[in-house]
């Protein structure tokens, strides 16, 4: 009790120094007075009494010191005094301080932001228990035409595995509808085996997850938190209620499912999901989606062991690879750590950013180091004076250290703010503005696990520590040098040539290093910037300007005929809007990346076998008249799909340039007849080619066009019906996602209500799934390149500015040091031009070395960028040249200012400087 009380009081005493000091002085004065009184009473004179009293008391100051020692923690007090002194001295040289603090903040902030992102994505375990034991089973190099793993194969796999504790299957159904009171709503459904959540170890936020016991009653579902908020207004009563789910391959045409629980959004790692439900039999023979198996390793089992087992089981279960398939380059089937698999796409890019930001931090340290060196040298006289006055070397070093700590702390504090802003910026840059079906295509963010990205305190502390260490080393170096040399260089700051040669070499090295690193960053940013420019300018084959894209949602129980009628009515209504120039329909719009290959198209006089094994067969795209006009697809020959190809007319197709080249080579396609083979069981049919259009980059702006055959969607329905397709398959090929495109003469916000009114007027049950400007979709398609280019661009600009400042600082300092020399030269007849040349030469020399070495480094390292580039070679000469010339110009400009100052030296003043 008493020791604690004393500890607290000693701490508190630090803040009440003044009162305690007054009280102490008063007490000691009284004490002395009392002694004097006594001594005077014994007959001493006043003067003698005063002296004797002092003697009896002992040293007053010593007593006070010891009182202070006992009263408060002295070392804290000392540190505080050093700290206050450091702050005062830093505030005096405002230019130096703000330069150093801002530089440090940029370095610490940028580093913290990028490493926080990398840490959250690459290093942090998934937010699932023992997540490092989760693996995904991957079938490598699956040949074309071989279907993915089926549900039946999954079930047998699950029974055979001995390395896995559990094996689950997940596949995605993008076409499911949730029936709500406001009409049908598209939901992203994940169809999972009942043990899915058990294998993942995921815990629900409300209710329960699906469980193996649900095998008995499969009509259950789990919704995600965002769906709960969006569709059910976060109603607590939702768990236990029944909803209607329609359409889709695994869910059955219409199902009533009971919601048993709600999953938090965090931890939805495998894709965009609104609702999970069970796989309903008889789905056994149907293929699941791509790589649908997720397993959990038994404790102690390695991924390698699971991999080799998966290869054995998988190879036995899966159909044999056809002889024509290219030989495998590795194992056919393997198990891969789930997290590694999820983030593998972004790993190379994050590695590039981590290196870039590391380089930036090095530049920052170099800059702060040269700032501190300059300051240290400039303060030599002050230090020498202090030493002459008796300050110990340790005391001076300690005080310089305090200054460095204060600098680094200020930089770190500001850096934390910069870092937090940086993380927000990264998340925002990575966010893709997409709703409805587009969210499934583009994802919510180009960062996997983007939701988990937060600023990492650990990373911040490491960055702070690094810069603190760097500033301490370079802040104290001059002081150590000083004390090594004894007191001699007291006036040497201005004159001494011997010590400044080593110094100028150090500073030259620092500046060169900065230039090298900044050059590398600039080249990287230049390459990515050019990639983005290329993307912006690439010939897409369509014009997204003022085009609105939306997906229609109709009740799935409408007959096919009613759906086509609704589509036609809606098109008519849309075209009747005054601001609408054109409107069209497609089963899946541009950038939805949904492709269908149906059968084989064979030109006249050729054999089916010549085309049946093509690696890239022409895709079938069902659309309506008006779609080409809306998207401004260029008709090269003949005509486009224009609405006259009704279901009763002979089959007509329009093909794109790639398809024309493959099918007809050099000869004219228009007017020729294609034979469309489905399979051996169904009769082939004839299609007349009515036109050829320019290629369109359908899947994404950075992906090449593929051969396409366009047909009127009503003809596709008619033909697939003749072939005996089920209504669901007919609709999947011809109506599909019901993408509409509307070309308008006005802006998006004014058009949206008009489009919505047209939809409601057409059918009261119809809804809109996602309505967005086509231009936004195009921008989304480039989000990744934009993200890379902007992020690296920011780093490169910071690096270049810092390096420029570095050059300027080094030369300005050199000019300051050589003022006397310059004065002498000028007094001896040197012209101003020569003086300017002398300083410029040094700047250009530094720049030449730094930039050349940097270009070499960039040349060696550029191949790491390859995967991030579009339409530009990693060793693009133009980019290298532009960076070299531009940066050289910056460096020369940075050295010109000090050179001019040198030329302005007045010899008379310079010589009198002693």
């Amino acid at each position, binding site marked *: 009790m008493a020791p604690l009380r004393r500890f607290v009081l000693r701490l508190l005493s630090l803040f009440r120094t003044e009162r305690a000091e007054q009280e102490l002085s008063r007490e*000691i004065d009284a*004490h002395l*007075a*009392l002694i004097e009184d006594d001594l005077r009473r014994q007959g001493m004179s006043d003067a003698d009494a005063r002296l004797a009293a002092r003697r009896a008391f002992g040293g007053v100051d010593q007593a006070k010191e010891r009182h202070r020692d006992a009263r408060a923690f002295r070392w804290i007090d000392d540190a505080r005094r050093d700290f206050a002194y450091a702050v005062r001295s830093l505030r005096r040289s405002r230019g130096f301080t703000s330069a150093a603090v801002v530089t440090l903040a940029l370095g610490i902030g940028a580093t913290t932001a990028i490493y926080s992102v990398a840490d959250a994505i690459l290093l942090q375990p998934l937010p699932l228990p023992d997540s490092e034991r989760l693996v995904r089973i991957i079938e490598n190099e699956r040949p074309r035409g071989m279907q993915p793993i089926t549900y039946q194969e999954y079930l047998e796999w699950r029974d055979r595995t001995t390395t896995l504790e559990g094996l689950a299957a997940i596949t995605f159904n993008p076409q499911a509808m949730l029936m709500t009171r406001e009409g049908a709503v598209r939901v992203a459904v994940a169809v999972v085996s009942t043990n899915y959540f058990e294998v993942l170890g995921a815990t629900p936020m409300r209710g329960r997850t699906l469980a193996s016991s649900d095998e008995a009653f499969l009509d259950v579902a789990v919704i995600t938190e965002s769906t709960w908020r969006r569709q059910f207004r976060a109603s607590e009563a939702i768990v236990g209620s029944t909803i209607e789910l329609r359409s889709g391959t695994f869910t059955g045409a219409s199902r009533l499912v009971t919601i048993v629980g709600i999953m938090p959004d965090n931890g939805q790692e495998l894709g965009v999901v609104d609702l999970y439900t069970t796989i309903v039999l008889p789905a056994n023979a149907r293929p699941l989606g791509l790589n649908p198996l997720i397993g959990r390793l038994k404790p102690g089992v390695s991924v390698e062991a699971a991999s080799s087992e998966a290869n054995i089981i998988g190879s036995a279960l899966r159909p044999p690879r056809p002889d024509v398939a290219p030989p495998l380059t590795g194992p056919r089937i393997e198990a891969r750590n789930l997290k590694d698999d999820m983030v593998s796409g972004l790993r190379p890019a994050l590695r590039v950013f981590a290196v870039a930001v590391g380089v930036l931090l090095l530049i920052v340290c170099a800059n702060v180091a040269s700032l501190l060196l300059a300051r240290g040298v400039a303060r030599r006289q002050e230090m020498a004076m202090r030493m002459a006055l008796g300050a110990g070397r340790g005391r001076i070093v300690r005080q310089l250290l305090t200054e460095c700590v204060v600098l680094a702390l200020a930089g770190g504090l500001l850096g934390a703010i910069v870092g937090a802003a940086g993380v927000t910026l990264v998340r925002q840059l990575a966010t893709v503005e997409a709703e409805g079906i587009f969210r499934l295509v583009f994802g919510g963010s180009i960062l996997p696990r983007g939701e988990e990205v937060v600023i990492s305190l650990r990373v911040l502390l490491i960055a702070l520590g690094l810069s603190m260490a760097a500033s301490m080393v370079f802040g104290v170096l001059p002081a150590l040098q000083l004390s090594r040399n004894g007191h001699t260089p007291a006036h040497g700051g201005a004159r001494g040539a011997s010590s400044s040669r080593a110094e100028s070499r150090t500073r030259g090295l620092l500046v060169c290093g900065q230039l090298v690193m900044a050059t590398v960053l600039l080249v990287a940013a230049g390459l990515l910037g050019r990639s983005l420019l290329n993307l912006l300018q690439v010939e897409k084959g369509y014009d997204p300007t003022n085009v609105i894209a939306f997906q229609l949602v109709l009740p799935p129980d409408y007959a096919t005929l009613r759906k086509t009628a609704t589509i036609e009515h809606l098109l008519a209504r849309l075209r009747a809007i005054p601001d609408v120039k054109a409107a069209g329909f497609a089963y899946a719009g541009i950038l939805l990346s949904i492709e269908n290959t149906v059968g084989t198209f064979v030109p006249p006089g050729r054999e089916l076998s010549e085309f049946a094994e093509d690696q890239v067969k022409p895709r079938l795209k069902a659309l309506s008249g008006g779609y080409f006009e809306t998207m401004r697809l260029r008709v090269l020959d003949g005509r486009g799909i224009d609405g006259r190809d009704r279901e009763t007319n002979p089959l007509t197709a329009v093909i794109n340039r790639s398809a024309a080249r493959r099918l007809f080579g050099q000869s004219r396609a228009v007017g020729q007849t294609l034979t469309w083979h489905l399979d051996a069981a169904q009769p082939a049919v004839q299609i007349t080619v009515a036109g050829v259009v320019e290629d369109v980059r359908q899947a994404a702006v950075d992906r090449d066009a593929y051969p396409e055959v366009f047909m009127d969607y009503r003809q596709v329905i008619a033909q697939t019906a003749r072939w005996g397709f089920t209504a669901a398959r007919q609709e999947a090929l011809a109506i599909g996602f019901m993408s509409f495109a509307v070309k308008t003469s006005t802006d998006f916000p004014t058009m949206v209500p008009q489009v919505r009114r047209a939809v409601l007027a057409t059918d009261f049950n119809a809804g809109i799934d996602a309505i967005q400007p086509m231009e936004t979709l195009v921008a989304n398609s480039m989000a990744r390149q934009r993200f890379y280019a902007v992020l690296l661009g920011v780093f490169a600009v910071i690096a270049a500015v810092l390096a420029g400042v570095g050059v300027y600082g080094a030369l300005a300092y050199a000019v300051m040091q050589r003022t006397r020399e310059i004065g002498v030269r000028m007094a001896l007849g040197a012209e101003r031009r020569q003086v300017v040349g002398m300083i410029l030469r040094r700047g250009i020399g530094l720049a030449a070395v730094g930039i050349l070495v940097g270009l070499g480094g960039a040349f060696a390292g550029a191949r790491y960028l390859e995967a991030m580039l579009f339409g530009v070679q990693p060793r693009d000469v133009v980019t290298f040249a532009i960076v070299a010339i531009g940066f050289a110009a910056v460096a020369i400009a940075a050295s010109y200012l000090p050179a001019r100052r040198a030329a302005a030296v007045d010899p008379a003043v310079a010589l009198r400087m002693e």
Partner: protein
Amino acid sequence: MSSERIELLQGTLDLIVLRALATMGPLHAYALAARLEQVSEHPLALNQGTLYPALVRLEQKGWIKGHWRKTETNRDAKYYDLTAAGRRALDQETEKWRRLSNLVDKLLVDPS
């Protein structure tokens, strides 16, 4: 005289101050110093200033408490008085000291 000087063991000064205050009632620092000199018949001959760290230590522990009062000679002085906690502490510390000094005595007397 300096040869007769006794170096006080760490902590013993605190105990002595507590004891003096318990015996004499409230004292100011000078009176305290005078009392210590009187009791020890001068061999301590301590600088009176050395009392101050002990006083602040004890006050911070809550064992004594200082008040400003007038002396008989009508001067201001800070008088220190034992608190209840101080009285308890004095008993404990005295007991501890006794045990320690007994032990040391025994060890010193033991001829082997």
